[in-house]
């Protein structure tokens, strides 16, 4: 008898939990820090940590297309050589040797894609960089890190964020501050994005959500 009472209480509890979870809790980041994407073997183990952390090189110095096109791109071999030709101290390191082997052979390095979105997704790097780096003046490594994780601590880059639709959506549903001049929102576009007018919080900052029509991201 008692076990059935317990069962019914459990069941109703389950119902209530499912209902409230589903309705109330937008999924944040189900992936933890150590739950990385698959390890990908690159032709050269590129040490992001040396370049981005130790040398403090801006991400967009190498990934130069990110701020002006939909794709971030990988740097051409020339760019690597352009620097490394003049850095004698590391020229005898095995990785740099491989680099020069490619250079001698006049072959591009066959880098492999780490952050691979499905083909039906349209992701625009330019818009995100423009919005957060140029308009909101966030530090570049933070802006890239929204999606790419803490790359400056990595050697070979690995996927750190989930990059699922729900993960994208969770961010687009947040109210991000809008700078006064330029950019989003134009007119009352932001009104439509969240079905709501842009918020103005106590300190007078206007906030708006990301675009939310499916066709923005889905081809």
């Amino acid at each position, binding site marked *: 008898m008692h076990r059935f009472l317990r069962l019914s209480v459990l069941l109703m509890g389950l119902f209530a939990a499912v209902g409230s979870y589903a*309705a109330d809790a937008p999924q944040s980041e189900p992936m933890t820090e150590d739950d990385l994407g698959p390890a990908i073997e690159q032709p050269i183990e590129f040490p992001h940590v040396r370049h981005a952390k130790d040398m403090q090189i801006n991400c967009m110095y190498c990934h130069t297309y990110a701020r002006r096109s939909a794709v971030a791109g990988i740097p051409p071999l020339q760019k690597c050589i352009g620097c490394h030709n003049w850095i004698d101290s590391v020229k005898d390191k095995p990785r740099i040797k491989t680099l020069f082997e490619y250079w001698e052979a006049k072959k591009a390095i066959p880098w492999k894609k780490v952050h691979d979105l499905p083909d039906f997704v349209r992701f625009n790097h330019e818009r995100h960089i423009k919005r957060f780096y140029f308009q909101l003046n966030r530090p570049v490594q933070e802006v890239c890190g929204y999606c790419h994780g803490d790359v400056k601590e990595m050697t070979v880059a690995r996927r750190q964020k989930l990059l699922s639709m729900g993960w994208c959506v969770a961010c687009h549903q947040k109210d991000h501050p809008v700078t006064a001049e330029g950019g989003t929102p134009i007119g009352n576009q932001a009104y439509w994005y969240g079905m709501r007018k842009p918020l103005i919080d106590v300190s007078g900052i206007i906030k708006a959500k990301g675009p939310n029509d499916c066709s923005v991201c889905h081809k």
Partner: protein
Amino acid sequence: MSKRHLLALFSNFDEAEAVVQELRAVNLKGFDADKDMIVKSPIEHPEVEEFVGDKPVYVQWFTLVGALTGGLLAFTLISASQGNFFAQLKGGKPIVPFPPNFVLTYEMFILGGVYISVLGFLICAGLPARRSPLYSAKVSEDQIGILVQADESASSSLKSIFTKHQALEIQEEAGK
């Protein structure tokens, strides 16, 4: 004080009724007709309920709770998810339109009602359960069984009541 089970089988309801009346009336030490007597019958039978006495049934409360929970769950879930999931316009309708939500609420109302009723039935009827120690397959065929539980001292007088009313068979639990 160890209690022993006795099972008597009868061929019709009139006899069974008479036995029940007599068991009610009789005053035996270690035997309480309300607690220690179970009437088993092959069919659902209003007469049995009449002479066994009116006992309350609580299944309908489960039904009520289940139906309300189901309906409420459906409505909140649907409305919240419509506003929650990237508010998308469809066919010029409002984001949270009532008529379709009511349809689904109605279905979930029934679903919750039925599920929890069955759960309530299992709880109230004490199912699933082990069969009682004295069991006769005859009960599921055509005979009425009266299962009593009494002190050893009372068993002989109970037995005599059964035989008086032409019990077809009396089973007795083996003594300790």
